[in-house]
């Protein structure tokens, strides 16, 4: 029995380099950086004073009825904009033949941002003799805190907003596996289509951790770049001088559907999802397995699922965070999977210009793979100056490159060891 084929028919994105797919792509091919001094809060005294923010974005004009989503958090607003773009491109907007109970949504969305000012002032105002006076806290909290600000922090609320916008009645999931979330969401969404549980599914991810406690958390882990004097070039995946990742924010959404449905309704097919792989390091919560066994297993299982051999892969969109550990481990894992051919397969990190969109990273990077296939051009790893002997592959340094691209692999590895890989190709 042949399995159902899964194709991508729509894509949308809101990220530090652009508020739609084409402007983002143009910026990437111009080797642009979306990284600058943090403006969302005063980070001037933090170990890291910069980030990759989405700039000048508002929901008005992005969705038909912005009022309906007035309670949406920052990342949810990004997701709504991206989803409307994807939905319109897919042509499903005007298509009457889609049973809404067979339309699903499977996101990799992060939690919403805390109501920082109120939350923090409560900790101060209810602090008595070195501890929190819970009675005082409760009285103040009920006076100050807002229902919607609180509930919208639950990570499944982005799913709820998209379901409302598109009338979804089918299966609805949110996965939150840190930096791997939206890659995992797309992989699992593809499985839903393949099995026939849905005919079409809205997938991708959204996240913003550019708030004081988010940056605090990553700074305490010493995971972020602290190159405060060289902000524009701070994100240096695979470069010898890399010193951590740069926190970004945004959302990217894709529409996946059954190939036969897409053909039947004459949709423009952007690419096919060929394979999905997943694994766990089961190593440590703080570190990746230094041998890259989990990353290797993830790539191998995606290849097997796609029915591809390493020789079929034309380009790899790397996880490439710009941390010391990730980039060398990922390089090691690519070598383990691709063997002698490793040096011939170009791989690059979109995070060099976009920053790390955390839960939204994988979906954004998969979109770049689809565009690489469409245009026959590989996006570069910018800020690459000094080779690292531990990272000795072809990272497409600094400028885009023309290439024949049919099949791409995209990697995402989450904090805590959840690894995911997708393989997409031009639709045959």
């Amino acid at each position: 029995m042949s399995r159902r084929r899964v194709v991508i028919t729509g894509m949308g994105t809101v990220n530090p380099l652009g508020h739609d797919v084409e402007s983002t792509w143009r910026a990437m091919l111009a080797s642009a950086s979306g990284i600058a001094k943090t403006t969302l809060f005063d980070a001037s005294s933090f170990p890291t004073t910069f980030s990759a923010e989405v700039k000048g974005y508002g929901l008005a004009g992005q969705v038909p009825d912005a009022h309906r989503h007035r309670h949406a958090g920052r990342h949810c607003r990004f997701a709504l904009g991206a989803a409307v773009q994807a939905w319109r491109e897919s042509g499903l907007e005007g298509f009457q033949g889609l049973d809404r109970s067979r339309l699903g949504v499977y996101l990799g969305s992060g939690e919403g941002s805390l109501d920082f000012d109120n939350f923090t002032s409560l900790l101060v105002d209810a602090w008595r003799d070195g501890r929190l006076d819970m009675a005082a806290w409760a009285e103040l909290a009920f006076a100050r805190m807002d229902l919607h600000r609180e509930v919208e922090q639950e990570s499944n609320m982005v799913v709820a907003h998209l379901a409302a916008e598109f009338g979804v009645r089918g299966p609805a999931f949110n996965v939150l596996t840190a930096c791997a979330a939206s890659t995992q969401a797309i992989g699992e969404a593809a499985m839903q289509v393949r099995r026939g549980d849905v005919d079409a599914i809205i997938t991708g991810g959204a996240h913003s951790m550019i708030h004081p406690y988010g940056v605090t958390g990553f700074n305490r882990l010493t995971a972020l770049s602290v190159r405060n004097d060289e902000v524009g070039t701070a994100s240096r995946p695979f470069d010898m001088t890399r010193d951590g990742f740069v926190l970004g924010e945004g959302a990217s959404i894709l529409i996946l559907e059954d190939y036969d449905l897409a053909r039947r309704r004459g949709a423009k097919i952007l690419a096919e999802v060929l394979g999905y792989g997943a694994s766990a390091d089961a190593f440590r919560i703080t570190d990746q397995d230094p041998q890259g066994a989990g990353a290797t297993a993830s790539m191998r299982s995606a290849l097997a699922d796609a029915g591809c051999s390493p020789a079929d892969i034309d380009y790899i969109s790397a996880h490439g965070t710009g941390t010391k550990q990730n980039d060398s481990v990922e390089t090691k894992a690519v070598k383990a999977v691709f063997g002698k051919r490793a040096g011939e397969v170009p791989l690059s990190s979109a995070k060099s210009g976009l920053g790390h969109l955390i839960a939204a990273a994988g979906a954004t990077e998969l979109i770049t793979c689809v565009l690489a296939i469409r245009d026959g051009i590989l996006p570069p790893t910018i800020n690459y100056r000094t080779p690292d002997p531990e990272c000795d592959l072809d990272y497409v340094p600094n400028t885009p490159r023309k290439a024949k691209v049919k099949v791409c692999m995209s990697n995402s590895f989450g904090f805590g060891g959840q690894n995911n890989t997708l393989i997409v190709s031009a639709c045959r």
Partner: protein
Amino acid sequence: MADRRVAITGLGVVTPAGVGIGPLWEALLAGGQSVGEISLFDASKFPCRIGGELTDFSARGYVPKDYRKAVKVMARDIEIAVAAADLAFRDSSFVTRASGALEMTVEPGRLGCNIGAGLICSDLDELGSAVNTSLTDGKFDMGAWGRSGMTNLTPLWLLKYLPNMLACHVTIIHGAEGPSNTITGGDASGHLTVGEAARLIERGGADAVIAGGAESKLNAMGLLRQSLLGRLRSDGAIRPGEACRPFDAGHAGTVIGEGGGLLILEDLRGAEARGARIYAEVVGFGGACDPGGIDVKAPTTGSLDLAVGKALDDAGIEPKDVGAIIAHGTAVAAEDNLEAAAWSKALGQTAQTAPAAAITGAMGSLFAGAGGVELAVAVMALHTQTVPPTVNFARPADGCHLNLSSRPRGAEIEYAVSAAFGIGGQSGACILRRYRK
């Protein structure tokens, strides 16, 4: 290749009514109540001051000695999951890395994990201690925080509160190197993870998966948020143990509980080959959502009727085949009414005839932890051919026609169905079948 069949071979539950499936089942059959005054923190100024607490609970006794230090970086939600995982693997006689054995029951790369989680609240005392080092004129000073205040937090602070850390600790402790997912779908999480786990085994992506969920909202932020939503029983006019009354005429809001349930799912042939005790099979799954879930003040069941209908289709059975219903039963009046109507829509007459039960009366609402426990209870109902009582159910609420009882009932059950829904409007349903050799 024909789809592989999926067996359930282990149950691990951590609930206010009982820790471990034996103690929980016994407590449920006895109709025990475990909701009481909140003692974990001073709730005196909250409108609702009762909850289903885990007493004297720590994950320390559930991890290998060399992992005990890591318990310090586990939020309570994570501790619950870690304990439930240990109980589940032991219950299934499954050898994992935790035992120190060289060979596991299945290869590490063939053991998957999918654990549902919620929004984990940071410890307010811990964060408050750090925040209060950074004041200028009695107000929080961001400059001081960035320069030095934040260094009062342990370097691993963030990792205590990431929802995927439930799964990450479990995979590390037990050496599960297969696919690992974390579903954050509110109360539907447990059913969604078990459904996904069954799919993963079916398609050959793993030979065994630990799945379910865990959560604790029994903290100041959790209590605040549920209070703001208006879902909690806050009249104080009733004994705490009797406050949470699913589908009962006196239902007047839910009570927050804490806990979780994890199940071991295995490829049936593999389970038979290793001589495992097989409790039941997972034969159907369905998920759905309600586009109205965006309005968090309006009650929703997340289109539970659609989820149950899909699960029946997936199992290839008719409503009349259903022998037991484990309902979600939040005890929020409007939600109970909608849920009862959804069961009727999905099952027709069977919704009123098949013996049904809800566990919230015994322990309160467990949120992302609910589904795993509800499914474990459904498994036990099949395994023992007994439907447990619904604690605090005395007289049906208007329009709630589920066949509930305050006593345990023996029944001939071939198929049991369990479903749940949460804030935001997502739902999941699973069909389980009695196992016969």
